[in-house]
């Protein structure tokens, strides 16, 4: 009875599994697009089959026994309780199997660790809750945030995630790498521990604050590969995906050229209309502020102050600029924001999220005003 029920459950699950496999679902580890990921996949399959084999052997024996050696069938209990030969055999055989597993595992491990002789290096910095990429060879540097469609969908009650393309697996600026090139990654973090994982590359590696880790990859096939942060890093841990686009060398070179040029351009500090400022400000807010202050500016009770009706936000503009740029012990400094981004986000938070100050600030009016004596949080930062 036991066996039949188990079997029928198994068959049902397998049927569901097979149907699912016909959709674009994975039931098994992906093979990936690097030599290392293939080696890991092969090792995975080898160990999986060994485990299945052991399982079938052990459970087969057990179920045979359950079926035949039962009291209801009138089976008399034997009274043996040890057998040294058998016990030695079933200690030695598993040991041999384990040694057999350890050899290929060690080889793959050494391969994974061989970061030397690389062609280029990318610095990956995990931050709450986005990734920051710096190409150490060519000065390209950008942040990679969850894309706006997913950001809005997962924060809006009643939104349909299925209508969003690549829900939670899309970013605004993907990491671009050339194919068939040995790329070395150095990983670190700007706050808490994160972990950078793209399954198709075959590994994940933790990003620890203050320390660096290294890893490498060499992608065989051009394409887009997606992954996620895999170390719990706070409330939005589930919302910092990774997208890697592997390009053929000429495409990559073109991308580098274009991106470097864009990066060299000075930010556009020309005046914008009030509505433009607010609209652009929303994008800046969604990238930089929403993780803590939430989509409606409510903050989090007891932990993170609300933006709605906050005197700090609706008060003077100059102290607000200083506040955003210098941060406090609780709020990170946003000195990275360009003047136009600051103008946009300030206009946005003063005129949306339940606030209605009615004014605006233009990018060219942003003057650094760092001092803010009214700020309580800041008091303990003042040196003697």
């Amino acid at each position: 009875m036991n066996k039949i029920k188990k079997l029928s459950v198994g068959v049902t699950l397998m049927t569901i599994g097979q149907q699912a496999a016909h959709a674009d679902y994975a039931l098994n580890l992906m093979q990936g697009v690097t030599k290392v990921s293939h080696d890991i996949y092969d090792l995975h399959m080898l160990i999986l089959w060994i485990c299945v084999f052991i399982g079938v052997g052990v459970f087969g024996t057990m179920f045979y026994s359950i079926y035949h050696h039962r009291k209801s069938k009138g089976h008399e209990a034997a009274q043996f309780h040890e057998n040294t030969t058998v016990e030695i055999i079933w200690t030695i055989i598993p040991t041999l199997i384990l040694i057999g597993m350890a050899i290929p595992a060690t080889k793959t491990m050494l391969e994974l660790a061989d970061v030397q002789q690389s062609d280029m290096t990318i610095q990956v910095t995990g931050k709450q809750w986005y990734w920051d990429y710096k190409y150490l060879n060519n000065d390209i540097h950008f942040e990679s945030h969850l894309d706006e469609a997913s950001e809005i969908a997962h924060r809006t009650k009643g939104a349909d995630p299925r209508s969003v393309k690549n829900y939670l697996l899309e970013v605004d600026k993907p990491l671009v790498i050339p194919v068939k090139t040995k790329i070395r990654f150095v990983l670190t973090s700007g706050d808490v521990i994160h972990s950078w994982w793209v399954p198709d590359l075959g590994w994940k590696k933790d990003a620890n604050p203050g320390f660096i880790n290294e890893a490498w990859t060499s992608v065989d096939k051009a394409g887009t590969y997606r992954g996620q942060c895999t170390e719990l890093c706070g409330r939005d841990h589930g919302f910092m995906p990774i997208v890697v686009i592997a390009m053929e060398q000429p495409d990559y070179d073109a991308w580098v050229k274009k991106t470097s040029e864009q990066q060299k351009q000075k930010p556009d500090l020309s005046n914008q209309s009030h509505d433009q400022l607010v609209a652009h400000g929303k994008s800046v807010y969604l990238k930089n502020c929403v993780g803590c202050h939430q989509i409606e500016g409510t903050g989090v009770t007891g932990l993170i102050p609300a933006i709605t009706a906050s005197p700090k936000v609706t008060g003077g503009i100059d102290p607000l600029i200083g506040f955003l740029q210098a941060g406090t012990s609780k709020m990170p400094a946003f000195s990275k924001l360009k003047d136009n981004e600051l103008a946009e986000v300030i206009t946005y938070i003063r005129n949306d999220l339940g606030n209605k100050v009615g004014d605006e600030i233009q990018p060219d009016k942003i003057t650094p005003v760092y001092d803010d004596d009214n700020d309580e949080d800041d008091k303990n930062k003042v040196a003697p």
Partner: protein
Amino acid sequence: MSAVVAEHDDHHADEHHDHGPAKGLLRWIITTNHKDIGTLYLLFALAMFFVGGAMAMVIRAELFEPGLQFVDPAFFNSMTTMHALVMVFGAVMPAFVGLANWQIPMMIGAPDMALPRMNNMSFWLLVAGVLLLASTLLMETGAPNAGWTFYPPLVLQPITVGKALPFAVFAVHLLGISSIMGAINIIATIFNMRAPSMKMMDMPLFVWTWLITAFLLIAVMPVFAGAVTMLLTDKFFHTSFFNAAGGGDPVLYQHIFWFFGHPEVYIMILPTFGVASTIIPVFARKPLFGYSSMVWATGSIAFFSFIVWAHHMFTVGMPMAGELYFMYATMIIAVPTGVKVFNWTATMWKGAMTFETPMLFSIAFVVLFTMGGLTGLMMALAPLDFQYHDTYFIVAHFHYTLVPASIFILMAAGYFWLPKWTGNMYNEKIGQLHFWLSAISVNILFFPQHFLGLAGMPRRIPDYAIQFADWNMVSSIGGFIFGLSQLLFLYIVIDTIRGGTGEKVTAEVWEGSSNHSLEWTLPSPVPYHTWTTPPAVVPTEHVLDSH
């Protein structure tokens, strides 16, 4: 020191120990009787099982569909954190301490635990610890939400964990003190209180596994207490154990935590092995196969648990020598664990088996624990762990080794010993129904999580990409069925205590059980005081050649 004072008082109390239990509610508060305290532990654990289970239902409800429907991400993280803490420290560990309290004195022919006053104190400290932990749920800033592993710097971050950290740390201290006192008590009982005729190698395997577990507890609970104390001083007193800016290293915390954490998982599984090794021979009507190899296997698993901790940290950036060492050391554990599984199979082999509920749960334990063990072997291989780590594959693995293993065996133990304790038989039909519902739904719950993990779903996320939707839904449905099925167990426990089927059980309860261990030679229900004079003869189930 208080333990020593208490001990002297006990001696005084012991002189009048033929009186019955105190009357009313006070009986349960001041009791020093090992059976009363065992009952308290078991009922408390059962209550916490439902509290922790309710949290799991919140998690599965949120993950039923993509998108955030019910809770916000920070609360979701609180749920995963609290679910783990409540289940580990509130349900599984206390349940095994409860079984130890009931069974160890009866199995070794002792009148009570060695230090009865301390026994009472360790129970109430447990309650205090869990209440302190649960109180954080009512805080404005919420319960701890940095995972049960409390990794810094996340757990120290003001915007993540609000005011809950010191409460959680002191709760861990209380739980630690409670566990250590319980462990000391168990070791003293086993060493000093055995019936004179019982040698160490005559002890039932449940007693052996608990003895070894108790040593693990004494060795690692203080280390955990130390680690969380360092967190506390880092946060409030400007030490820099784990802060790179002050010369510390956040990875150091992970080493200290897992030095505790790995033995901790064996603390939850070794007594499980003990109970399984007690139940299976009874229903196979055969002596346990390979008694001494079981003892050695348990001992070596416990030993290895101290030297494999960093396999939880393969991706943290360890030097190659470390990665390889921890990989090899971890793989070795498969050998003694395999020996145990083979021994259980051999115990069933050529037996005369019957399949009452305790046996069904035990067989399911052997099968499903082995599955959890095999996936454990897969992730012991460091390069594979670079893919599996922190995904649902891991979640599936450790739930297989905890739910259909530890929890199933606790259920089995309930069905097995409740008739002995109460003198009433449970309803076998409902018991079997409970088993089949649990065994099937637990697989619907956890098996698809292997697929999710391999397909790339990280753990501890409140929302997920669309391609993970279907298996999450299946898993959630399994979870709801599993959760509801456990209400049957609650019903059975209450029903059995209140009279059960009305059938009065014999002293043996299960045919031939008195050949296996001492408690079955006592009358059913067991009297309030047992073995006031130690038994003259003890069953030595591994030496049955003379029979």
